[in-house]
């Protein structure tokens, strides 16, 4: 466990010392601030637009971090051969993969926390008090980012960072379309389409499960059973992807 934490801490430090992170955070803060201005353009929907836009900015930042930084986590270590000096230490390839993921996940959670504070400040200005639904919305973003970073890292164990980004963006898009695909498949008579829809649902994570961003604005009740189930769903995907990543990396000749 100590080895995993050492790797995670170093990964955290690596990302925190990368200027790109701060650029992304500044853009996200500006987007959240812009949500306030956009809200002014409407007469009755100011709060809804501000919340939607604010959550979208946080969601986008988390996804960008998970995919773009996640793509370099393992592939850059292999390309630059830094992995060689790590794996000759008493560290298994699984510990390496888990440590790297935890390091990036910590950065993502910290960024989400920071941006959430900015959004909460803006909401307070609009006399909207962030509640449990607000926190659950953020928690969903964290879970989605965790799955996406594991997806990206899995691709990074056997392809370049560029390809990992492309594959992960594909999974992101399909993961959000699965419900729409299901809707059309239920109304279709085409056997092939129905088969493809079922196969896609079996292979790709359904990222819409993590979407609790509208709970706060519509004042819908939080269903804690769903939250627990979706957390388990996220953990299962993360465990599967990390295990497969470690297995793929474990079979590879390095350097």
């Amino acid at each position: 466990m100590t080895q995993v934490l050492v790797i995670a801490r170093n990964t955290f430090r690596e990302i925190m010392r990368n200027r790109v992170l701060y650029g992304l955070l500044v853009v996200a803060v500006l987007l959240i601030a812009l949500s306030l201005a956009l809200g002014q353009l409407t007469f009755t929907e100011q709060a809804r637009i501000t919340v939607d836009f604010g959550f979208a900015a946080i969601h986008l930042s988390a996804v960008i971090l998970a995919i773009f930084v996640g793509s370099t986590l393992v592939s850059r270590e292999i390309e630059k051969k830094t992995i060689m000096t790590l794996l000759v230490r008493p560290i298994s390839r699984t510990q390496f993969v888990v440590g790297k993921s935890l390091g990036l996940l910590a950065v993502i959670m910290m960024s989400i926390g920071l941006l959430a504070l900015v959004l909460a400040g803006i909401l307070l200005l609009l006399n909207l008090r962030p509640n449990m639904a607000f926190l659950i919305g953020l928690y969903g973003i964290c879970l989605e980012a965790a799955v996406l970073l594991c997806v990206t890292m899995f691709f990074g164990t056997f392809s370049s960072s560029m390809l990992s980004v492309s594959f992960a963006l594909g999974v992101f898009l399909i993961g959000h379309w699965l419900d729409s695909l299901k809707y059309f498949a239920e109304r279709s008579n085409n056997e092939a389409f129905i088969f493809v829809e079922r196969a896609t649902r079996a292979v790709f994570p359904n990222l819409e499960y993590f979407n609790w961003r509208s709970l706060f604005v519509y004042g819908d009740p939080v269903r804690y059973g769903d939250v627990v189930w979706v957390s388990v769903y996220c953990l299962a995907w993360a465990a599967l992807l990390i295990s497969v990543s470690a297995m793929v990396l474990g079979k590879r000749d390095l350097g």
Partner: protein
Amino acid sequence: MLEYWLGVIGPKPWSFMPVLKVSQLEKSYRLGFIPRPHRVLHGVNFELPERSITGFLGGNGAGKTTTIKCLLGLAYPNAGTVRFFNNEELTEEVKKRIGFLPERPYFYEYLTGLEFLEFYGQLSTRLKRNDLKEKSEKLLKRVDLWHARDKKLKEYSKGMVQKIGVAQALIHDPELVILDEPMSGLDPDGRFYLAEIIRETAREGRCVFFSSHLLPDAEVLCDRLVIMKSGVVTYEGGLEPFLAKMGEAAIIRFLANGREETLRVDSDSILQNELKRLLSQGAHIVDIKKDRNLEQAFIKHGLRGEGQ
């Protein structure tokens, strides 16, 4: 026994367990658009005794780096065995006793020298934070990087990166230190300094195994050699026996017709004949110096294609 030390490869006289024993190591890579196996190692065998500095020599593509990767579990051999210390496989416990510097190392540029050593120390030792810091600082002084301890590695020169690379290989007091081309790309000062560190490491009782293209450096550092050519070991044994086996070259300095001249001869028999000839021609022999060097012996060995 005597034959062995004279360089005739035969049964090893060591009565102790070798630090490393490599037997029948084979490795193929699948290369090409339609991947076909390309055999790199064809049954590599050698051993490293305790407290030795062994040079791992061979031309480009001889299979040195592939062998090192197979030893350290970075690449998986197709056949053969690698055993460390008391006939142990490469386990997590064994890894704690090995230090490694890869070829053309690239380290985490965002870390400072001190952070870098602490990071590698944390991965390999169970030292407390303060003890580890103290140890890292001591090593930084030893590799002459104390002045750069708070500089990020991206600001380090190539020589400094190589030095900190050696320091990370030593942070956990390993019993076996494996260095892949530690001298490559260094200026003479850097090579001299690194050679000193390697000697000091061996004096502390560790076994050092390093690959190199730079034969003059290997000659002054090693007491043993493992030479590879085309994926097989063509020589394994002491440096001195290797040089002796490859012939005794000499340079004769003599005066003839009032002018000083030199003549290089490649073997003892040629030396005797040339001396007779020069003396019979009335030349005055000023001095005869042995001219043995690893570079010539290595080329001669390669031309003979021994071991294949």
